[in-house]
């Protein structure tokens, strides 16, 4: 036991530093982009049929792309997506993805965005239609209705499922180790390979993840408390 605490004191600072340097930035950058993908995808999938023919053709194409995107990223494992993007695409001379960070952020954000788009879509659908009609009757344009009425209300509803997605993503960043990013879990593997304290090192890695996810859960709780000021 003394040995465990000794190792914890020795390696936890390194693991926390790796978490702050790699795990958290990967998570936050990817999640920010994922939110953009999720909202855009949900809005496209819920868009009403335009009056003009060209509008209908354009929206039909966008809906097709959005549907395919969500299907593709939910139909395949994230680790396979990482391998395709980081090892496969540069092999096909698409060298932009030869950078591990670019590949990781691309896959994490697109994958999380695909799942989150369904949460956002459900949240938008749950805003009562009379709220939309009230905004329309004031003379708001469709984009004003979205920006000022639908999205603020949908945002509150989507906090729990999106928080789930964020916490899931934080843990999934461990997969970045398979494409050479020395994030926190990879670091714990390297240390375990050197000192042979395998159980201890993986328990310490699990502890760091638990600390980070608990912090995110507390942040979610605070955000829910803050937004509950305008609803029962």
């Amino acid at each position, binding site marked *: 036991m003394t040995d465990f605490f000794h190792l914890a004191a020795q390696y936890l600072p390194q693991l926390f530093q790796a978490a702050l340097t790699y795990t958290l930035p990967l998570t936050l950058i990817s999640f920010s982009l994922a939110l953009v993908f999720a909202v855009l995808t949900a809005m496209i999938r819920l868009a009403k049929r335009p*009056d003009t023919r060209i509008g209908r053709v354009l929206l039909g194409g966008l809906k097709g792309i959005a549907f395919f995107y969500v299907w593709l990223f939910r139909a395949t494992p994230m680790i396979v997506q990482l391998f395709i993007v980081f090892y496969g695409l540069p092999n096909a001379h698409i060298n932009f993805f030869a950078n591990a960070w670019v590949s990781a952020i691309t896959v994490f954000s697109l994958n999380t965005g695909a799942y989150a788009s369904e949460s956002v879509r459900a949240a938008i659908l749950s805003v*009562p239609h*009379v*709220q939309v*009609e*009230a*905004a*329309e*009757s*004031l*003379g*708001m*344009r*469709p984009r*004003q209705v979205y920006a*000022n*009425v639908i999205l*603020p*209300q949908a945002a*509150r509803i989507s906090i729990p499922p999106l928080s789930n997605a964020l916490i899931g993503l934080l843990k999934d960043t461990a997969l970045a180790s398979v494409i050479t990013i020395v994030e926190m879990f990879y670091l714990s593997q390297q240390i375990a390979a050197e000192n042979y304290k395998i159980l201890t090192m993986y328990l310490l890695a699990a502890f760091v993840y638990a600390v980070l996810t608990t912090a995110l859960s507390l942040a979610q709780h605070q955000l829910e408390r803050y937004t509950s*000021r*305008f*609803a*029962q």
Partner: protein
Amino acid sequence: MITVNNLMQQYGDRRALDQVSTDFPAGQTTVILGPSGSGKSTLLRALNLLSRPDAGTLTLGTQTIDFSQPIDQATILAVRQHFGMVFQEKALFTHLNVLKNLTQGPIKVKGQSKAQANQTATALLAQFDMSALATRYPYQLSGGQQQRVAILRALAMQPDYLLLDEPTSALDPELEAQVLRILRDLAQQKKSLIIVTHNMAFARAVADKIIFMEHGRIDYDGSAAGFFNAKDPRIQRFLHAMTF
């Protein structure tokens, strides 16, 4: 003056509006009555284009909308500038407090400054003794208070006409009285009101004109006094059913 001509609207095999033609004089209170499903709300919602009849025309001053033709976004927005609307359901924006509910339209749609919109909203709240509610959120208000704020939100846009779609039907009698009082005040101020209601006593008290609808058709279109003294058996039947 607003005029509608030959409005037709079909929902499946049901005709919601059947050759509806009438007008809504400015500065008067028009009450639309009729049994459930008679087309009252459909007619009201057609005026601000929340619903679009399949055919017929809507004339506002010099502008005529032909429902058989596509209506562009600019026209829809221009028409809606003439109307404020209060819904049967509670339709205040749940994420905004009362003051912001009142200022959202003037700021976002009319381009007013925040200070100007706040000033108008504050004056409206004071005029109707609701200043104490300014910072409350909709869930903190009673049903009657919510509907009164919804009326002020519509008034804050300074519309030519105020449309009210059964604004008290979801309220208990005490709360209903609060809302009817404010509408009576507006009617006395000669605001242009178009109200769908089931409250006969209220209709009798405030209506300058009554439109009675059944099966999507207008069966009576005239003065309130004429309606309540009508010998037409359908109107008699309706009044009897609503009274007892």
